[in-house]
């Protein structure tokens, strides 16, 4: 009998083309996502504003009357409210605030984006493996528990002592310890969908793991992943400012919005503009990502597709 079975059934060599052929339709996932997203006008507007902000930060530095790298201190000019000469006023040392704010905005956006994308890539990859590959579950759960349970500040102190402080080190460090939440969320979702019947079927048909993950499971993750991503941007900015507050942040030659806000905290009762400008930009970034993230996450949910 066994012998006959062997003859009757045999595994077909997997071919992506053949797989596509049966499932072919006009439907394209990403196209639908895009179409759905474009329907949310507020999100689209915010996204445009955000891009405008990024572009403007470069223009702003060019049209400003002062150059960040050659700012001079002058105690007589300290705490000047915004005026024709100093568009955003001056700080406590009498330096132009306009170029500081825009320079810092660039740093912060760059950092937040790099960290968010890094966390996302690392978190989703590890989360998928963690959830899907049973053998890895124990190992990764243990790893997660350990990393998650050692206070971040111990790592950050050690890193800055042993490796130093710079933009690159900071972003790598934040990614290294930031992927955990994302990975855990993804893992829980993967667990939920892993044993659904269609995946079982897929597996029986010999579809490789990566393809099941990418084609069958990933679309379900996109909406949550994007929401996390959007929320990680403000938290990166906040974490960065907390770390700077503890002396573990970016190097001194790279001011960030977090640092400006931290400093302004001491001044804002007397000189509110020092807080308002950086806070406005941070808020704008956060709101954009929140709205865009929400809209995109709705649009990415396959169940909302026609």
């Amino acid at each position: 009998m066994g012998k006959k079975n062997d003859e009757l059934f045999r595994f077909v060599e997997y071919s992506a083309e053949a797989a596509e052929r049966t499932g072919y339709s006009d439907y394209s996932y990403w196209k639908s996502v895009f179409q759905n997203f474009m329907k949310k006008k507020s999100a689209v507007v915010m996204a445009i504003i955000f891009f405008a902000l990024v572009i403007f930060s470069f223009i702003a530095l060019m049209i400003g009357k002062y150059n960040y790298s050659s700012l001079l201190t002058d105690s007589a000019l300290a705490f000047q409210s915004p005026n024709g000469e100093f568009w955003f006023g001056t700080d406590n040392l009498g330096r132009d605030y306009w170029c500081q704010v825009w320079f810092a905005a660039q740093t912060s956006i760059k950092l937040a984006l790099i960290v968010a994308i890094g966390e996302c890539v690392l978190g989703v990859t590890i989360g998928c493996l963690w959830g899907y590959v049973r053998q890895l579950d124990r190992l990764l759960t243990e790893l997660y528990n350990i990393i998650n349970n050692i206070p971040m500040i111990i790592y950050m102190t050690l890193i800055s002592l042993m490796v130093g402080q710079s933009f690159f080190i900071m972003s790598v460090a934040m990614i290294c310890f930031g992927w955990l939440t994302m990975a855990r969320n993804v893992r829980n979702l993967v667990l939920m969908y892993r044993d659904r019947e269609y995946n079982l079927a897929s597996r029986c048909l010999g579809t490789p793991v990566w393809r099941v993950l990418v084609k069958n499971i990933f679309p379900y993750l996109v909406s949550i992943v994007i929401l996390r991503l959007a929320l990680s941007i403000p938290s990166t900015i906040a974490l960065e400012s907390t770390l700077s507050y503890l002396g573990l942040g970016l190097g001194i030659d790279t001011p960030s919005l977090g640092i400006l806000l931290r400093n302004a905290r001491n001044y804002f009762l007397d000189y509110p503009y020092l807080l308002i400008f950086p806070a406005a930009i941070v808020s704008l970034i956060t709101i954009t990502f929140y709205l865009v993230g929400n809209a995109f996450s709705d649009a990415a949910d396959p169940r909302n597709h026609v």
Partner: protein
Amino acid sequence: MIKYTIKRLAQSLVTVAIVATIVFLLMRMLPTDYFFTEDQLMKLTPEQKTEQLEAAGLLDPMGEQLLRFYGQTIRLDFGQSRRIQSGVPVIRVIGDKFGISLRLGCIALIISLIVGVVLGIIQTLNKDHILDHVGTAYTIFVNAVPSLVSYSLVLVFGSKVLGLPPIYSTRNPGPSSIIPIACLTLASIASYALWTRRYMVDELNKDYIKLARIKGMSSKTIMVKHVFKNAFVPLVQYIPASFLYTISGSLLAERFFSVPGMGPLLTDAITRYDTNVVQTLSIIYASLGIIGVFLGDVLMMLVDPRIKLAGKGGTR
């Protein structure tokens, strides 16, 4: 179930032991200068410094130090604080503090859970209407403004307009806790509302809800019996952990309002090289974290009977 619990606990002990070891080793990698105060650095001779380090056992081989540490920890002897409160047993230092963090944290957590979940439900019920937008605006605002700034705003409003005490005072703990608690709830209300709304909206889109609607079930029943119950499952998992984490306090809020709680303790202990305090805190935090996840799993299982913990592969 009991077998499973024991197994989980044994695993957790291993995790805590690994965490403690790593923290122990990490602390030994920090420069020994931390061990001394500024004045000691200035006034002690190099020989005296070496003697001090020797007396504290910091110059012994790492393996020996580690074994000693294990021995003491097993006997639940966490040693004495070196700099936070010189000479005082670590347990007493922490004991004095955690009650305050726990009290403030729990009050804040209960308030934010209730307000946050209710807000999330209201938002879902009024999806895309004015109340939803108001809620969203609040969430956005809280997330958009860095906490140091929003604390400052709460502080100005509370102390200048309402006349509340601006920092925590042992003379009148009640009124002076109001502003710190308000600050603590600010962010967590937003996050509970956000996730409640998210999960409920997700649930609303599911096919069985559509079916229920078609079947003619009243939308109230759908909401209460199906949507809320199912949406609450993923949320429930984090509640025990959040409760336990209140013990660890909030670094920023407690420092900002001079609350004598656990929040700033870890940072202070690290910068003062108070190794015993750091190690004890790490062990406590790790245990809390692990217990929190475990209780979360149990709670989730109670809420959703489909989930089985002991099952092979574990679908928690």
